[in-house]
């Protein structure tokens, strides 16, 4: 199953992370959570790894509509966007919101998921712009 879309970015990690948050903000997604996986796992289990941040992006209008038709949809919210160091550069990976429709099998969720998918793609396209 395809569950993510990805971009390989160049440039300093923190700069890319900020660009990601700005791009999603421009499409109506606020940064609800920001989890520093590298720091968390270093503190909890002494793991050494590259930079790895999970941005929880939320479009409140879409989230509200989705919760109205499918209260359990919260287990799939917010839209997670991973920014991590990789050999090729800084990877930006976004969950495909279309999963919300396929996982729930809810016809009512389908148009909302499609709208979210379009906005996520527009945010990712912003990252590709020079």
């Amino acid at each position: 199953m395809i569950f993510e879309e990805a971009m390989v970015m160049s440039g300093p990690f923190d700069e890319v992370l900020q660009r990601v948050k700005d791009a999603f903000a421009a499409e109506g997604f606020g940064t609800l959570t920001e989890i520093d996986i590298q720091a968390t796992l270093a503190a909890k289990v002494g793991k050494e790894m590259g930079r790895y941040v999970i941005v929880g992006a939320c479009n409140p209008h879409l989230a509200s509509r989705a919760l109205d038709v499918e209260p359990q949809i919260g287990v799939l919210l917010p839209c997670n966007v991973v920014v991590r160091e990789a050999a090729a550069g800084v990877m930006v990976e976004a969950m495909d919101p279309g999963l919300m429709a396929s996982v729930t099998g809810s016809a009512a969720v389908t148009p909302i998921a499609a709208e979210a998918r379009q906005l996520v793609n527009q945010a990712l396209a912003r990252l590709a712009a020079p």
Partner: protein
Amino acid sequence: MTHPEITCHRCNARNRVPANTSGRPTCGKCHEDLAWLSDLGGADFASVIESSSVPVLVDLWARWCGPCRVVAPALEDLAKARAGKLRILKVDVDEAPSVSERLGVRGIPTLVLFNHGAEVARTVGAMPGERIRQWVDTSLAWSPAS
């Protein structure tokens, strides 16, 4: 099965090339190597990969995927730059889910490079055309000018 049409990037003549052609297609008008970029269509993925006499770069993509659209023009340029040496095969994961399952693809765009029927490299995520070209050349041990 309909044969994909490839427009010669040198003389603009249109050429019909069967998906399972194993050789290097050339333009019927000017006889130059064609920039071989085509969709899988209804062809059998395994036989296309295994019968190819040139390396095959498989682009797993979807119409709804924004990063995939970023990669598309870069692959068109690459097909022209490596005409006669490389085939680029576009696989729509929604139309051919069995291919993405077979290759264990979880994210798109994913580029998988095959040579002599075997996978030699893969990369996930959209990146600039020049980096894709470098990745292909390095993976196939081609010199940049080749």
